[in-house]
């Protein structure tokens, strides 16, 4: 599903962001990506969606070699990856339903699909009945659920969550992870970048640790620290 082979990324002035990365994530896996700030986690995600180009090495996402991907095909790669951000990135002048419809319009879904998907993803994240609320009328946890619902609406095979619970209290964070596990159980590959030690330790899933741009640990079932 996701395969990095000998990937290096250098920024200007020879700043090394990633060095000789070899990672393979299979379809349906649930993976934590951990590491201190500046360890290369964000660069890893940016390379996956081709927001940045690798300096060398090959990257395959959902059977597509993205090194060879043309500029005009990038949107279609991104449709295969649902993104959940730490700061939710919602449209605050639109209702919950409209935020999800927005994503479905982008992928040019049909009217019938839009109606069905909005109902279905809101049910999945536990926001049924909140369709007509504006994000600001809801709690932080609920806002992150909107963001999750939006990422799921287009039925991507991969979900990337970048610090999804960074702004949430522990109880709400637990609920978000429960939802992520539910989604994973349905076959979606999930990659979570997080600093939430307790959750990583508690779930006992695969953990990939980065430090100074290198993979320092890849445990099939691990904790936040070794």
């Amino acid at each position, binding site marked *: 599903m996701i395969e990095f082979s000998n990937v290096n990324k250098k920024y200007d002035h020879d700043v090394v962001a990633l060095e000789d990365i070899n990672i393979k994530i299979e379809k349906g896996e649930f993976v934590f990506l951990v590491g201190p700030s500046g360890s290369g986690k964000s660069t890893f995600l940016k390379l996956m969606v081709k927001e940045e180009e690798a300096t060398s090495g090959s990257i395959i996402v959902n059977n597509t070699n993205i090194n060879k991907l043309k500029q005009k095909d990038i*949107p*279609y790669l991104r449709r*295969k990856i649902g993104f959940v951000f730490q700061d939710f990135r919602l*449209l605050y002048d639109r209702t919950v339903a409209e935020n999800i419809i*927005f994503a479905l319009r*982008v992928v*040019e879904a049909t*009217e019938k699909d839009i109606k069905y998907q909005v109902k279905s993803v809101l049910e999945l994240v536990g926001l049924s009945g909140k369709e007509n609320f504006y994000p600001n009328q809801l709690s932080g946890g609920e806002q992150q659920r909107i963001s999750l619902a939006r990422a799921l609406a287009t039925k991507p095979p991969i979900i990337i969550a970048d610090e999804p619970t960074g702004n949430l209290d522990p109880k709400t964070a637990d609920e978000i992870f429960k939802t992520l596990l539910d989604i994973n159980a349905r076959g979606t590959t999930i990659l979570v970048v997080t600093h939430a030690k307790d959750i990583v330790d508690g779930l006992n899933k695969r953990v990939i640790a980065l430090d100074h741009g290198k993979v320092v640990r890849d445990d099939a079932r691990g904790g936040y620290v070794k």
Partner: protein
Amino acid sequence: MTTNTYLIKEGYDNLKKHGSKTFSTMLIICATMIVLGIFIILLQNVNKNVETVKKEQGFQAFISDAATETEIDYIKDSIQIIQGVKDIKYIDKDMAFEDAKSVFSGQEYLLEGLQKVKPFPASFVIKFNDINDASVIKTQVEKVEGITKVKYNEATIEAVITISNIANIFLLGLGTVMLIVSTFIISNTIKLAVYSNKREIYIMRYIGATNSFIRKPFIIEGAIMGLLSALISFVIISIGYVVIYARLPKVGTSLGIFGFMPYSQLWYQVLGIFVLIGLFVGIVGSAISIRKYLKV
């Protein structure tokens, strides 16, 4: 709702969201269009009158006093077969004298005593289809036997052509400046719209929106602005021209020479040019602004 209807709605919503900026932009675009419109109308009138002058212009070929009637008929036939000659009219010595009298109207005493002599030669007034053939026709007429002199009003014709050319070049220049200014103004307004939608654009890119999907609402916003400005300017200029035209003296028009054109002959040109310019500045202006947000 199809994707395109949705994008049109988004464009229209953007327009409303930036109401006051949209209004002031359209005000400036309207002002420039109206100035341009005035020049288009003036130029159309100049061109029409230039055409009239061109058609009315001809030259006079004088005949020797000794020419017999047969010779005059021969000259007439010879001129008529020259290519490009539209009309030929014979003016005999009597008519030439009468013409001279009208020229000296009020001072007829100057011509007293000349009645019997009839000093003005008979001539042909030759008119042609196309002003540009004038000099070729002149050379051929000069070669016809029995013609003593060809008086050809080159100065008038050249002046007319020069005026028409200058006016056309001026309008082209003004139109270009107006296009650049208006495109720049619309582009600036759209830049603000793009900026205030930065968040949407960022999210759209992550969700997998194609460039054309992101671009369309802004292009539509620009196009609506340009089109509305064109229609408003058209209404204002139409009312203006009709009101002014009603107050203009119609002497020239009735004589078939100089005069202003009725609006029925002009409106579709003004509307056509305005709509084209409006759409052009709207679409190009917004395309310029959105470009840099589409990278990556």
